[in-house]
């Protein structure tokens, strides 16, 4: 840190509070707009210095939750604590939670320096200290020479970093980021993902990041909460969410999957057999908390990378274990994308199945019209009761 002893009071409070290892806690927070339950009994705790994301489709309530943490909305019930202290009755301009807005909301009538100094001025920091702190934060974001530029002279990525610097100069307890990468083009977005992660490490501040883009959440976060219809579906590490989704929603929302609706024809606890609505027999494994019994309606998910596609003429390979699902079909089209290439196969029941393939460019590659078999392990069929 810059060494300026800025908020001594906070430091004392930090040592005295017992729950201070959490920078941010939400306890059973709910918010209703008219008859719409935007946020429904949501709880979360974010440990100090971590990168936490809330991932969900638009309209799931994630923005409302963030606005409650920033203080722009008042929860109907529940408590929000920052460094262990309840802030529910603190007005937004008194909370030490800073926010990077979706469209950044940099002030166009001020230059970069004035934008960054704005919060310091509001806090009554003396002019000489403002000077050094703005300079310091500009160096940290690797833009030491832009202090006198106007906002409209900056590139998209520079604006992004200035918006973060404008918050970080105030040394917030938590930095909120509301889909700040949404307005950038694809290339820059990819670069900014990495940059954001590095900035977070450098400032050692807790970041709470909101997005509907699963790749942003998966790449950057230590922990991700998947939100749907005002509720958290699952909180966990990115790997956790991907490989072990707790609900059908998480399985469908995080990562690409094939998805079938069907009915369980037999069940022995973990391994089940099901018949899809189109009449295909598939064996799979129950995931999540709900137990699957015979006759239950089931949704099954299989990730494309777990499905192996083989040309029919390669008779050599044996169809091994009984646990494996094997279906045959015809290649409808190839989706070439380098190492992540996929093949779309129309199976005999008329479903389209997406599977990963290796396309080397040689003559052995699959072509549309080829007859193929698809096979995958029962463990990889993630089944949820619907």
């Amino acid at each position, binding site marked *: 840190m810059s060494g300026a002893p800025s908020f001594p009071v906070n430091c004392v409070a930090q040592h005295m509070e017992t729950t201070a290892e959490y920078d941010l806690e939400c306890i059973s927070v709910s918010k209703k707009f008219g008859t719409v339950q935007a946020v429904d009994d949501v709880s979360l705790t974010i440990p100090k210095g971590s990168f936490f994301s809330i991932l969900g489709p638009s309209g799931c309530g994630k923005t409302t939750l963030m606005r409650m943490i920033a203080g722009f909305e008042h929860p109907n019930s529940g408590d929000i604590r920052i460094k262990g202290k309840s802030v529910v009755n603190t007005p937004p301009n008194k909370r030490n939670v800073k926010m990077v807005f979706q469209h950044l909301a940099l002030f166009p009538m001020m230059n970069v320096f004035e934008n960054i100094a704005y919060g310091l001025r*509001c806090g009554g920091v003396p002019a000489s200290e403002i000077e050094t702190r703005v300079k310091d934060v500009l160096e940290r974001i690797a833009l030491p020479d832009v202090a006198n530029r106007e906002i409209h002279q900056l590139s998209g990525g520079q604006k992004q970093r200035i918006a973060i610097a404008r918050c970080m100069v105030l040394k917030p307890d938590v930095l909120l980021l509301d889909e700040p990468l949404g307005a950038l083009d694809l290339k820059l977005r990819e670069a900014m993902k990495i940059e954001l992660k590095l900035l977070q490490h450098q400032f050692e501040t807790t970041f709470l990041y909101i997005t509907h883009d699963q790749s942003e959440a998966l790449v950057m976060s230590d922990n991700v909460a998947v939100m749907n219809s005002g509720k958290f579906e699952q909180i966990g590490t990115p790997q956790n969410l991907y490989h072990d989704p707790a609900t059908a929603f998480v399985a469908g929302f995080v990562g690409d999957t094939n998805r079938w609706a069907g009915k369980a024809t037999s069940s022995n606890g973990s391994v089940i057999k099901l018949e899809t609505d189109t009449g295909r027999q598939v064996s799979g494994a129950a995931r999540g908390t709900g137990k699957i019994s015979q006759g239950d309606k089931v949704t099954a998910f299989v990730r494309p990378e777990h499905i192996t596609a083989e040309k029919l003429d390669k008779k050599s390979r044996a169809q091994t274990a009984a646990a494996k699902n094997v279906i045959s079909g015809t290649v409808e089209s190839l989706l070439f994308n380098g190492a992540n290439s996929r093949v779309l196969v129309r199976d005999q029941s008329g479903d389209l199945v997406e599977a990963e393939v290796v396309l080397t460019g040689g003559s052995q590659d699959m072509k549309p019209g080829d007859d193929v078999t698809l096979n995958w392990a029962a463990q990889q069929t993630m089944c949820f009761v619907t």
Partner: protein
Amino acid sequence: MAQRKNPAILFGYRLYVLAFFIFLAAPLLAAGLFAFNDSLFPTLPWRGFTLNWFFNDTEPQLGMFHDRRLLRGLYYSSIIAIMVSVLSVFVGTCNAFLFVRGNFPAKNFFYILMVIPLVIPGVILGISILVLASSMANSVENAFDIDLGMLRPGIFLVVLGQFSFITTITSLVITARLKKFDETMEEAAFNLGASRIRVLRTVTLPFLFPAMFAAGIVSFLVSFENFNTTLFLVGSEAPLTITMYDRMVKVGSTPVLNAVSFFLMVGSALLALLSIVAQRDKSGT
């Protein structure tokens, strides 16, 4: 360009546009240029260049800057225009916040009420305000024996009369700008620790300022050139347009009127330019 016109049609079109701009400029040039003709009448032939109609201090070529009545008219016009601008920009700004931020029943109805003064003929605004003010003054006089001079025709009524419809113009200009304001900018300022007043002073008003300035200039110009409403409300302090009209009807056209016209056209053109420059968004968004 999407047009696939043949060159002859395009040429004809250009000629038409040129003809229009000549039509637009001709009377203004006639009104302005005769100010420099060294003659007692604003007619051809051209008798040589002179600035007498601006600066000469003796009859018969008494210049506008030595003509007492014209100068007084200019003075009253300026006073009225400044008061009208200040008032109408203030109320226009309030209206902009009211209609962009406020939430109240029958908002659409009130919005239309706000626009209506712009389409009421100026003559009617003039007489209706005259009628109300006079009847109020009369009742006060009959009941309390006090003469409320300010409700009789005079500067105060002229200001009210012009204010009554110019406020619609300022409201529309400032509302349009406030609608473009990204409200998250205010939230960002709150979030950075600013108080409500400070947000207004440092973020919202600076954003609105170009529109307020432009609206002020437009009010000034509209007030300065207004005739129809003013005609019924004017007292002994006649503003410039009334003085000029008087002169035109009683004395006939004299080149000093051309001098005033020239002065007014140059002045209003400069102010109009200034308001356009002020409204140009420098952020380019």
